[in-house]
């Protein structure tokens, strides 16, 4: 890793990056400022595209040399043909979407594998907040209930079910702590970020 550029790669991204095979064709949905693709391109010789809606992030992607397509994910992935990518990343974006099922079906259409992450609503401090009668506000869910961009609250167990339904097989599921390190014991309690590695189910 060229430390000058990537010392700052967020811990959760660094963990997720190790699941992407070198040289893969990658689609990063909700790619933000392009940090992940930048790292994958430069250090793992991947190629691909980012999709991002935020005006402010587009020049930052361009500045990093990341091919970025400005688009609302709710509009779907019609831009991309079936099986165009080895790996589709959808990192901390799914919870903001209205049509979660639709985008997951599209992900399984355009990619062979997918890596999906979202804040784990079953993280223990969230459970405690709910027991005390309040919606959780935490590092992974830093918003009040009335101004949150997160439309969907899901737990690790919930997501497994939906993934199965849209034709994705769970290869790995890891819960990360706020510092980006994986949790092995009681992940649905102790992990704040749920990360799934998925593969398109082969027809039986």
């Amino acid at each position, binding site marked *: 890793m060229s430390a000058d550029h990537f010392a700052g790669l967020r811990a959760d991204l660094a963990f997720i990056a190790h699941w992407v095979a070198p040289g893969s064709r990658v689609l990063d949905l909700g790619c933000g400022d392009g940090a992940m693709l930048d790292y994958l391109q430069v250090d793992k010789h991947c190629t691909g595209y980012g999709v991002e809606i935020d005006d402010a992030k587009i*020049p*930052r992607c361009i500045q990093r040399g*990341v091919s970025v397509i*400005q*688009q609302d994910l709710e509009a779907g992935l019609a831009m991309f043909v079936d099986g165009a990518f080895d790996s589709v990343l959808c990192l901390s974006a799914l919870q903001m979407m209205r049509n979660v099922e639709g985008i997951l079906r599209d992900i399984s259409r355009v990619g062979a594998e997918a890596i999906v992450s979202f804040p784990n609503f079953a993280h223990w401090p969230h459970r405690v907040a709910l027991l005390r009668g309040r919606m959780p506000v935490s590092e992974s869910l830093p918003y009040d209930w009335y101004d949150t961009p997160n439309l969907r609250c899901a737990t690790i167990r919930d997501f497994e079910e939906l993934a199965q339904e849209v034709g994705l097989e769970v290869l790995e599921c890891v819960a990360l702590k706020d510092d980006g390190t994986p949790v092995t014991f009681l992940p649905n309690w102790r992990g704040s970020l749920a990360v799934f590695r998925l593969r398109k189910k082969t027809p039986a």
Partner: protein
Amino acid sequence: MKPIGVVSPKSMHFSQALPLQSGASLADYTLVYETYGQLNADHSNAVLVCHALNASHHVAGYYEGQPKSLGWWDNMVGPGKALDTDRFFVIGVNNLGSCFGSTGPMHTNPATGKPYGADFPVVTVEDWVHAQARLADALGISRFAAIMGGSLGGMQAMAWSMLYPTRVGHCLVIASTPKLSAQNIAFNDVARQAILTDPDYHAGDFYAHGVVPRNGLRVARMIGHITYLSDDDMAEKFGRDLRTGEYQFGYGIDFEIESYLRYQGDKFSEYFDANTYLLITKALDYFDPARQFNGDLALALAGTQAQFLVVSFSTDWRFAPERSREIVQALVQNNRKISYAEIDAPHGHDAFLLEDPRYMAVVRTYYEKVWQHIDGSLTTERKAAA
């Protein structure tokens, strides 16, 4: 930001005949052009800026003694601007058939000794590109760092990437389309009919009659102008505002929008050539690079080698974002490096000529990246990835 200051046009004559897509050819011709900035030692910093329907080679700066004669993309091109002339050698070239200096309908047809008029051969976007390529040859530019254009200019940039793939490093296609829709062609034909049916048109030979088909040009410009603005923009600028505050119950000017459009039409008819207008709208209509590939744009772009930036504007209904997305999709299918920005601007098609911080930031950042390749400040890892 210091202004680019005084500029002056140059011209170059070409005596080798130019074969045209129609089968006709131009025996010889002159191209008028302007340059800004300095060509570097290895000729790697040249950027070609292609103009749209109403514009010319005069991209930036102003002419001696005419401080109001600002170039049409002066907000984009200049020292320290998004396309920075302190770094890049920028060329604006007037296309064949235009009325701003390059050989066009009002020039003498060597075959007859009279102005070409309507006999000036219909030229296409591709013909323009071939002519521009000869100018590039003459200026010693074998490969452009970038070719950029908005609207019809974007079509030229695209055509360059297909016709001369090895000569284009980056292709910037702004507010453009891979082909005109039926509606676009319909508007163009209304404009053409306005000119063709003006009694002063004289089958294109109005120069000999000492008149100008002014009414036709006015209407053509008015209809064109409507398609450049968005409904919201017009509502905002003019609404239903009345000139005098009262209905006049006649056919003069009641509404401000009428006044505005008539003023635009009048102004246009003073300086624009009717034959040029016909010609350029035809070039627009004919542009359809996918046509020879059964409508498959991805196939048409398969031979390109450039990296692309495509920009569209949300309220542009002339060349709507959907049209730009077709280009993006075709490039993605070819695994090209491509970035696409869809700017949520209220100004319709005209937005590509206007100052918008998001738009400018995208173009500026893109050129900064292009520049890093030229001046060698990219690390080797990043070069490999790019």
